[in-house]
C-alpha cells in the first residue's frame, strides 16, 4: 500500500460510505415535506397579518359599507358609461303604453344622472380611494424590480457558496 500503488485519498473519496437508497429517499421526502408545510404556514400567517392590518384601519368595514351603495345602482359598467339603452323593438312595443317622447326624456334624464358617476372611468383616479392610477402602478413596478433584484442576488449568493 505504498503511495504509488495505492491512492489513499482517492480511495477515501471514491469509497466513502454510501447510505441506503431507501433511507435517502425517505429522509429527503420528510425534509421536503416539512419545509413545504412550514412555507405554507408562513404564507398563511402573512395573509392573516395583512388581513389584521387592513382590518385595524377599518378596511373591512369600509369595504362592507360601500358594497350596498354600489349594488343599489344595479348597473353594468356599460350602462354606467353609455347610459341605459332600450332596443328599438322594445321601444316599438312600448309605444302603445307610453309615448315615445316620454321614454326618450326618461332615458335622457337617467343618462344625465349617470353621467357624473361614469366620469371616473375616464379619469386616471381609482374608485373609493381617489388615488391617482400611477401611484399603485409605480409601487407595483418598484416591488417587481425589488423582487427581481433579490432573486438575482440570492442566486448569486447560492452559486457562490458551492
Amino acid at each position, binding site marked *: *500500500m*505504498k*503511495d504509488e500503488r*495505492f491512492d*489513499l*485519498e482517492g*480511495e*477515501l*473519496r471514491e*469509497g*466513502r*460510505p*454510501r*447510505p*441506503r437508497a431507501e*433511507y*435517502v429517499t425517505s*429522509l*429527503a421526502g*420528510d*425534509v*421536503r415535506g*416539512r*419545509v413545504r408545510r412550514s412555507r405554507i404556514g408562513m404564507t398563511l400567517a402573512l395573509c392573516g397579518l395583512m388581513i389584521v392590518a387592513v382590518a385595524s384601519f377599518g378596511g373591512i368595514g369600509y369595504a362592507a359599507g360601500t358594497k350596498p351603495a354600489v349594488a343599489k345602482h344595479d348597473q353594468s359598467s356599460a350602462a354606467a358609461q353609455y347610459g341605459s339603452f332600450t332596443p328599438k323593438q322594445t321601444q316599438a312595443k312600448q309605444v302603445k303604453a307610453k309615448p315615445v317622447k316620454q321614454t326618450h326624456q326618461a332615458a335622457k334624464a337617467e343618462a344625465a344622472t349617470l353621467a357624473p358617476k361614469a366620469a371616473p372611468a375616464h379619469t386616471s383616479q381609482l374608485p373609493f380611494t381617489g388615488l391617482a392610477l400611477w401611484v399603485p402602478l409605480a409601487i407595483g413596478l418598484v416591488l417587481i424590480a425589488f423582487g427581481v433584484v*433579490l432573486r438575482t*442576488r*440570492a442566486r448569486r*449568493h*447560492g452559486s457562490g*457558496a*458551492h
Partner: protein
Amino acid sequence: MRGFLHRDPLADAETLIRQVYAYAAYRLGHGPDAEDVTSEVFERALRYRRSFDRSKGSPVAWLLGIARRCADDLLARPREYHEPVETSDGRDLEEETVRRMMLAGALAQLSDRDRELIALRYGGDLTAAQIAELLGAQTNAIEVALHRALARLRRLLESQEAATLRPTGSGRL
C-alpha cells in the same frame, strides 16, 4: 435585507444527506449509528434552519457542524455493536468488501482527532479552509494535521496488509 436573501439550506436534501452520512460513517462506522446521526442532524437542521447564515459558510459546513455534536453525543453513550451495512455500486463485491473492511479497521485505530479530520475532508467533502473555520483553527494547521492523519492511516493499512499476507506466506513455505 439579509433575511430576504436567506435561501433554504436544505434545498438539495439528497446530496446533503449523502455527505452527512459519509461523515458520520467515517466517524462511527457504516450502518445504523451513522443513519441515526444523519437523521438527528436533519431533525435539528429543520428546527433551527432560520438560524442558518450563508455568510458564515455553506449548508454542508453548517450541517457537519451539527453532525459533529451529534456524533460526539453518540460516542459518549454506550454503544451496541451493529453489523456493517453492505452497499455495492457494481464494483467487484469481494474486493470492495475486503478493501472497505481494511480501511474501516485502519480508521478505527486512528485517534478521534485524525478520524474527525478525515471524516470532514473525505466524508463531508469539505476543504481545508472550511474545516479550519468549523474547528476554529488555521488552514495551514489543518492541512498539516490532515497530511499527518493520512500518513498514519497509510502506515496502519500497510501493517494490516502485512499482517494478512504473513500467515499465508508462512503456510506456503
